[in-house]
């Protein structure tokens, strides 16, 4: 394990469990399971015990590790100099568990589905472009930007709706974009986070090769998870394309007057996805888009920006569901927090969050009070002149 040398240095003080102002526990698995063992400090101590052979790897140990949503709240608030490596420690431990055949069944199924089908939904590759049907958007053929959609945007109904809405808004703003459709391959962010390094390398190398062959120089992603892995991991494997999240692009578009929103009287709260916010420090662009819509009121949730509470879908949990449902599940906690603001719309910028929070809206019976809507859809509702 590359980071074995830091594992014993955790003091388990617990700052990692909180947001900056200590409002409430901000570590989703700790919130769900309640035990200290399911928090960052607990994991560090257990990993140390496992490295010292004081405990044996078990199903429970695996659950503790794989329930981590990689939301990076711990990295944000740990007080120690090794804070930036916490998620790497968890990832390396998960790799060891995967290699030792100890990944939970749901995780194994996830890897298998991606390996066999190229996506976790076990759906045919040809269906990957269905989201674009009837939009008039074109497949990639040398346009300036590749619009990379990812698995959730390609196969999940809510994700597909978001892919359409974002794709069309980018087009309206005058960006020359093309999508891959059936040629698209999973970006591998969650595969990596879940510790399957071999599969991740295959996916990443395949994507890099394909992008290079197709002459892709600039990528706009729908999904912050894809943004994260493209920006941080792919360059290590030789990728040389530039990448932006669509919120960065729309932020520029409204700033440059490529999009001029009309007034829209509505109260909106914005949920920061972990891979956009904490992981990639993109806090401003989505807010700047909302603020450019006349009459629209933005109200912040109690926990936002660096303190945002994860929807529970990160770290592969969207597919593996190790956190499970119930009142304390992160998406339900989060939707209650959003409803507390009195907002009519909850703006989302990640297909995983969109799905998780839409499900939570139903579970909490809040459909009458609030809607979960992606940022591009809000612009569309406002009406834009381009």
């Amino acid at each position: 394990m590359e980071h074995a040398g830091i594992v014993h240095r955790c003091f388990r003080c617990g700052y990692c469990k909180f947001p900056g102002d200590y409002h409430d526990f901000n570590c989703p698995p700790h919130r769900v399971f309640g035990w200290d063992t399911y928090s960052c400090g607990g994991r560090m101590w257990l990993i140390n015990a496992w490295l010292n052979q004081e405990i044996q790897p078990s199903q429970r140990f695996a659950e503790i590790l794989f329930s981590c949503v990689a939301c990076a709240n711990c990295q944000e608030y740990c007080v120690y100099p090794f804070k930036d490596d916490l998620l790497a420690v968890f990832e390396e431990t998960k790799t060891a568990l995967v290699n030792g055949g100890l990944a939970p069944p749901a995780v194994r199924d996830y890897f298998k589905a991606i390996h066999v089908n190229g996506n976790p939904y076990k759906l045919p590759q040809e269906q990957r472009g269905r989201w674009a049907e009837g939009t008039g958007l074109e497949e990639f053929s040398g346009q300036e930007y590749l619009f990379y959609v990812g698995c959730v945007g390609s196969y999940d109904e809510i994700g597909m709706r978001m892919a359409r809405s974002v794709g069309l808004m980018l087009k309206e703003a005058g960006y020359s974009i093309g999508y891959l459709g059936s040629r698209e391959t999973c970006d591998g962010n969650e595969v990596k986070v879940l510790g399957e390094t071999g599969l991740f390398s295959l996916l990443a190398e395949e994507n890099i090769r394909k992008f290079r062959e197709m002459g892709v120089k600039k990528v706009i992603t729908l999904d912050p998870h894809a943004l994260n892995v493209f920006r941080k991991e792919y360059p290590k494997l030789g990728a040389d394309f530039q990448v932006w999240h669509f919120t960065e692009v729309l932020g520029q578009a409204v700033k440059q007057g490529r999009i001029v929103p009309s007034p829209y009287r509505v109260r909106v709260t914005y949920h920061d996805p972990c891979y956009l916010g904490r992981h990639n420090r993109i806090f401003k662009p989505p807010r700047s888009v909302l603020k450019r819509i006349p009459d629209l009121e933005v109200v912040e949730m109690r926990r936002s920006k660096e303190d945002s509470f994860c929807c529970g879908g990160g770290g592969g949990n969207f597919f593996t569901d190790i956190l499970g449902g119930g009142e304390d599940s992160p998406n339900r906690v989060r939707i209650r927090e959003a409803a507390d603001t009195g907002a009519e719309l909850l703006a989302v910028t990640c297909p995983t969050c969109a799905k998780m929070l839409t499900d939570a809206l139903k579970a909490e019976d809040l459909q009458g009070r609030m809607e979960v809507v992606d940022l591009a859809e809000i612009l569309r509702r406002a009406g834009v002149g381009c």
Partner: protein
Amino acid sequence: MDRILQSLIDIVGEKAVSNHAEEIWYYARDPGVMPPHEPDYVVAPRTTEEVQRIVQLANRERIPIVPMGNGMALTGLVIPLKGGIVLDMKRMDRILEVNERGRYVIVEGGTSQGKLKSYLEDHYPHLRHSIPDAPAATTIAANVAIHGQGRLTQQYGFNSDMVTGLEVVLPTGEVCRIGSCSMGPYWFSKGPTLPDLSGLFLGWLGTTGIITKVGIRLYPRKKMRDVEIFVTDRDDLVADIVYRVTHTEMVEDITVWFQPKPLMFKDNNHITIYLTGDTDEELEFKRLMIWDALREFIDSKDGGFMSVQPLKPMLLEMPQRGIAAFADVPKGGGFEYSGPITLVDQYPMYAEKVKQLASKYNVVYAGTARIISGGHAMMFGISFAFNRADPDMIDRVRRAVHEATEFALDLGGIPWKPNIHEQKLAMERMDPNTLRLMKMIKQNLDPQGIMNPGNWEVG
């Protein structure tokens, strides 16, 4: 399935009980230097009634039971020395009531310091509580159960002095209210003018009952807060400096600290003085009064105010997160401290001893004194950091801390949050009648000896 496990599940539900190897291993230890001992079960109750039923079960079956907050006392007080049940109280974390005009708050027994701080900032921005510098996840009930100290201790005494009422599950399972709340709806007094029964629980390290609700005083939160550091290289002047500053009755908190690293701090005593005020004028006036009180030391060049600007963000933080970072000085994840309570006059002897011990045991030290109640006493923290991967260093720290406590008790100090060995040292020195009284109380409250056994165990 094991009968006890089933009974616990019947009380709190499956998700709130664990006897999995992972929780058993984790809850067997704290981050200090005391050796671990495994519990049989870890249970996380949500209500007083659940706590009551767990205690009744434990009492019936004679199972040891150890209440735990965040396990940060560091002296092994939550290590289940005789196995049994560790009660993780953190799920009982509701803030139940704030009486704004009466300036008190009632919280559940697992509420963290951080949560209360944030809640008050949101809802009662002109009120605050005496927050310790312990990590924010540490709990209010545990802090008063060990007579902790916080930001307002210089002004108002130990945090346990600020208790305004308790709800306790006795070791025999009765739920008992202490103070004004035993007679009516208000939680404004823990004792006076009744017989003060809170003393049966405060300072007992969880050996006489489980606090399920605690009322504590709140205090005005001024609009501004500032800090100055007065530096002197003369240990012998510290008590006098503190005496002059406390005479002004103008300061919030006073801590005195010295440490060898970084080099700029070496060989100096840093007297950190916190000020609060509602206006610039008020702050300025207080600052002037303090400068005036210390002018003599400045004129004689025995001390002076250091430039504090770069340190301000860290010093004004509550809790001060940087203190936990001491644990990583030897790249190691641990520190331990002895924190005897003693007279401020004894500062020079303590300061000397810390350095002596650090050199004798070859360990990294930090010394900190927190002034209590306008100088009536101080908590002198003798801290040594260690590397958790180095058993020899851990052992050296253990011996250094033990020697520090022996030294303090020999000088007439009393131990704070003592580990079991320090408790023994204290009891050896205690008046036999006092000891008998403690034994009587303990035996009557806990006839089966189930509450945090091994601690405050009078032979």
